């Protein structure tokens, strides 16, 4: 008996369900991913290293990481404000806005990309307003940030909402009764309590943004070294029949994604909760 080393429960179906879950996960996800690693192994360590350190790859990764980081940060800041107003304030249209948060999740990324480009292009609704200010939104790294912010928003808001809801009013009242001003209460009582959730949301938005492709290609401009993101580079390599190069970058992204996920799980363990709604 090797599978369940220890079984606390008398509930039936452990072997069946775990077996199914593991076999399914292996067939659908793990084994195909092995193919990726095996193909990249053909390069050897040196080949892998020289591929991922090419200036163009480095530039793409810098952009992907940088834009994902900025997007996730924007989401952390504005997502926090959005979550706060949704949880704390009662105003007209709150339910509608609350429901709308998941839109980036439900809207196909290509449609999002086309729609965002339409709006932020110099002749679009918002782009027209930005143009006189000298701000070019599309076909610049800013465009990448716009797309990635759009994609990541639900992750931050949906992670923060339950955490904010769980904050008990009596803690804040206690702080107030001890003489803390509202900003002090926020800084020293509320904020530390939701930092784990905020970090988790940030990490999820970041991990998702790192791999995003569909919405970005429409809005970024795709200039090598300037506005070309790492996933696009994979596609470009593939279309030049350079499988080894494509898999090398893919492996890099995959490993980073996995590391991000482990980090998220650790964060969640740290914050003592694994409940992420709206995901």
């Amino acid at each position, binding site marked *: *008996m*090797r*599978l*369940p080393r220890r079984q606390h429960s008398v509930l039936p179906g*452990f*072997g*069946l369900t775990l*077996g*199914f879950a*593991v*076999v*399914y996960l292996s*067939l*659908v996800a793990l084994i195909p991913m092995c193919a990726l690693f095996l193909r990249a192994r053909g390069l050897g360590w040196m080949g892998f290293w020289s591929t991922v350190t*090419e*200036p*163009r790859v480095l530039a793409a990764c810098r952009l992907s990481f940088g834009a994902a980081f900025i997007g996730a940060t924007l989401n952390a800041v504005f997502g926090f404000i959005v979550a706060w107003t949704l949880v704390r304030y009662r105003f007209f249209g709150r339910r509608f806005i609350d429901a709308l948060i998941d839109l980036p999740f439900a809207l196909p990324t290509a449609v999002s990309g086309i729609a965002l*480009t339409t709006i932020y*292009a*110099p*002749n679009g609704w918002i782009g027209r307003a930005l143009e006189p200010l000298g701000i070019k939104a*599309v*076909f610049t790294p800013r465009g990448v940030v716009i797309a990635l912010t759009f994609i990541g928003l639900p992750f931050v808001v949906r992670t923060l909402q339950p955490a904010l809801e769980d904050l008990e009013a009596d803690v804040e009242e206690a702080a107030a009764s001890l003489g803390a001003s509202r900003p002090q209460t926020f800084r020293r009582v509320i904020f530390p309590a939701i930092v784990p959730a905020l970090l988790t949301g940030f990490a999820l938005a970041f991990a998702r943004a790192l791999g995003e492709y569909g919405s970005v*290609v429409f809005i970024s*401009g*795709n*200039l*090598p*070294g*300037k506005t*070309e993101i790492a996933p*696009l580079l994979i*596609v*470009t390599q*593939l*279309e*030049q*029949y*350079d499988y080894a*190069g494509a898999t090398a970058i893919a492996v890099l992204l995959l490993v980073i994604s996995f590391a991000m996920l482990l980090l998220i799980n650790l964060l969640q363990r740290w914050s003592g909760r694994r409940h992420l709604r709206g995901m």
Partner: protein
Amino acid sequence: MWYRHGMKNWRSLAIVGLAVICAVGTAAPARAGKGVTLLNVSYDPTRELYREYNDAFAAHWKQETGQVLTVDQSHGGSGKQARGVIDGLQADIVTLALAYDIDAIASHSKLLAPEWQTRLPHNSAPYTSTIVFLVRKGNPKGIRDWGDLLKPGVEVITPNPKTSGGARWNYLAAWAWALKRELGDLNKLDDPKQAAAVAAAQAKAKAFVGELFKRVPVLDSGARGSTNTFVQRGIGDVLLAWENEAFLAVNELGPDKVDIIVPSLSILAEPTVAVVDANVDAHGTRKVAEAYLQWLYSPTGQRLAAKHFYRPVSVDMVDPALLKRFPALELVTIDQVFGGWKVAQKTHFDDGGVFDAIYAK
């Protein structure tokens, strides 16, 4: 007791595993249905051409053989489509932007014979095209030829030569023009005595093309993406486009918005076609596939090509009224200036090539 329990677990695991394998493995049979079906894997700007040609050929085939023919059509970036075929996209026919992409299929997959290009007339290119400029209505920046693209404040739109066949033609046309400007006569390229002058001209051409691509604000991955960027988004002052794309854009997107400008010199773009041997043999469609490509050279095929703004290879078969739309200009070939696709690809577009150097800084 624990042992028995363990056996049960493993057994259920095995059953589940089989079930999943069955579910996942219900791969679709490659072909089904009555009559005969061809899959034509093509590149982006041929959508309109093949939509009409497929219907015409199917009617012709029915008349000839009584067989009902369906042609499935797949469009995308030329390189992407070639990769699809290499990876198993069941194309009977490929009609791609340039010979290099079909060469890639031959060399990466052994799906078709290396000498495929010799099997049909005119280098296996039943129609040709060239690269022209699309500018804003009234040509406000006064662009007449390649040299004007470097005027201050001019923004150029072109797709990415790494992923778009059309963009490679754009790039090579610009290069050829620069060489011509420096050398005066492109025949000097083959003259060993002029080697020093040629080398100097090549350096000038490189500088010209490098400068040109510095004026590109958006590199879409395909020709259609660039057209949309230029017309829909209003980005850039000039779009480097296939001649047929330029005509189509004017027709579809509004003659009131853009004008076509024909430069003094451009490149003869030869979109090539081929039958994918291994696939037609597996599907039993060789006969119809070969007829499909042959018929492109027929009067109907040539007329349809001309109708959709491709230059027919047999001008005598086509109504002169249609031909009148194609402006005369000096056209150079890739063999003449660049020594063929393989050399051009290696020098300019492969990783570490000249194109990469433009963006390396």
